[in-house]
């Protein structure tokens, strides 16, 4: 407990009859980057809002730096740099005014990070925000969120509306901040990027963080999969004994518990001349699909 920067226990929150968080537990250590994963409506934004006292959980506790974060939300917000999921800046302000307004309430600024963001993002600070593109607004909101000298950064879909080049720059800034000892809790739908950047991933499933054992089991199951991609017409393959097969996005996916059947399957696929053949790995998008199979997508 002592080594944790953030500890969430039993967090529960409903909107009307819809239960969004159902006794969620989450830990985050100092200097750690945790990627929060889940489809729309699973409760990622609600969780982040609860941490900052913007939404009120029905029960549960949030401890930040050993202090009850829910009891003193003003203090909590002073210790967190927050990027809301919906970029909401005052359109009548210039970029500079919004930056000053957003940072004025924080006691200490990380001027180095602020200057780095301004240099990398190239935001037209003198222009009114109403003339900004969605990407520019997101970059300004990111500068406001990343610049306070705080131990925790909470970023809700930070790469939204950013082009690939700016996403790469953002990745660099996040790694730089992590190097400075900041903890980062980030939610995004760019799974591969999240996997590359995060120390850990937390899958939000039915209002809770999925049990790591459950995730490991899913990974192991995926590692037993054999994937073959064929160009042109798909070859006629009979499913070998003990294998279950599906076709997804032009890719043959076979799964078997029996290692002999897997070898026979690999041989058969090799003979058919595949464009690519892979096995023994668990791609994140497949893990995601497996964990959320059957979960209806709901808008948050």
């Amino acid at each position, binding site marked *: 407990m002592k080594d944790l920067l953030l500890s969430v226990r039993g967090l529960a929150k409903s909107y009307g009859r819809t239960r969004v968080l159902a006794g969620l537990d989450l830990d985050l250590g100092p200097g750690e980057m945790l990627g929060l994963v889940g489809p729309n409506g699973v409760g990622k934004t609600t969780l982040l809002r609860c941490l900052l006292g913007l939404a009120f959980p029905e029960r549960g506790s949030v401890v930040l730096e050993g202090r009850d974060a829910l009891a003193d939300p003003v203090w909590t917000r002073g210790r967190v740099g927050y990027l809301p999921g919906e970029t909401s800046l*005052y359109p009548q302000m210039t970029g500079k005014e919004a930056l000053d307004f957003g940072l004025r309430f924080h006691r200490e600024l990380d001027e180095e990070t602020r200057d780095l963001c301004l240099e990398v993002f190239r935001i037209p600070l003198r222009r009114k925000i109403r003339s900004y593109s969605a990407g520019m607004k997101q970059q300004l909101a990111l500068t406001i969120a990343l610049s306070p000298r705080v131990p925790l950064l909470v970023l809700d879909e930070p790469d939204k509306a950013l082009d690939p080049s700016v996403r790469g720059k953002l990745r660099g800034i996040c790694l730089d901040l992590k190097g400075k000892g900041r903890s980062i809790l980030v939610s995004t739908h760019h799974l591969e990027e999240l996997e590359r950047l995060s120390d850990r991933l937390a899958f939000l499933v039915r209002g809770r963080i999925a049990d790591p054992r459950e995730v490991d089991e899913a990974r192991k199951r995926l590692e037993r999969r054999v994937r073959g991609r064929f160009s042109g017409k798909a070859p006629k393959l009979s499913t070998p004994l003990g294998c279950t097969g599906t076709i997804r996005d032009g890719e043959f996916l076979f799964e078997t518990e029996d290692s002999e059947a897997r070898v026979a399957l690999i041989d058969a696929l090799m003979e058919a001349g595949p464009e690519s053949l892979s096995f023994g790995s668990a791609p994140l998008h497949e893990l995601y699909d497996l964990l959320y199979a059957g979960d209806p997508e709901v808008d948050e």
Partner: protein
Amino acid sequence: MIARKTWKEVRGMTFAYFLILELLLVLTLLYWPQLRQAIDKGMSGLLDLIPVDFAKRMLKDVMSKDPDFAYRAYIAAEQFFRSVNVIGISAAVLLGTGAIARERENGTLEFLFSRPVSRSRILRDKTMVLAASTLVPVFASSLSVWPMARLQGYEIAAAPLLLASLHGSLFILLFLMLTIFLSTCFKTQVHVAFAVGGFIVMEVGIFFVKGIREISLFRLSDYDVYMPILSGTLGFADLFLSRGIWLLAGIVVLYLLARHRITRIDL
């Protein structure tokens, strides 16, 4: 910082509102000699044309042979009962509807609430600026009656003008607080405006119906209040104990309700 931001949002509207108030005052004062002349020509039958008692009383006072008394009656009716009430309340509603509801509509509420500052302070800073924006023009306009009256050759003391302005301001502040409270309850400015507008229309309706008129809020700020103030027959203590205290209580209650409500907005 919140105060400065809010002031930037409302300063244009505040200035426009002051200009309207001042323009009405100037037109009112310029109209006075013509009305006086018409009355002198024998327009006493006009009294019978007025259907509401207080309006008859108003007209009778304006037609008084004492020119200073008549002038005060005219100012009480036109500047305080009409302009301050109508323009002041309109400005309060226009400025107050956006206090929180506009932030919700623009999607900026989450950004504002996620700053390390309490929601009570956000409400306090916004209320202070909106109150100043609504009330300063009332004082500035009403006190300018004093030099303008002198220019027209009439005597009207500054102290009663100040007291009438203070009372009018409290009345407007009550509507501002009602609007701010509703702004914390509704999600759009239009809903807030409709709710306050509906309430005002109902109050005005009650004010003009004999028998139930006494329960109208507008009885706290009508001609029967301002004329005695400007005539010097209703002093600060009597005014405060009979009416001001109710206005103040209403303002405090609405502020506390708004504070309660804003701290419970669940994003």
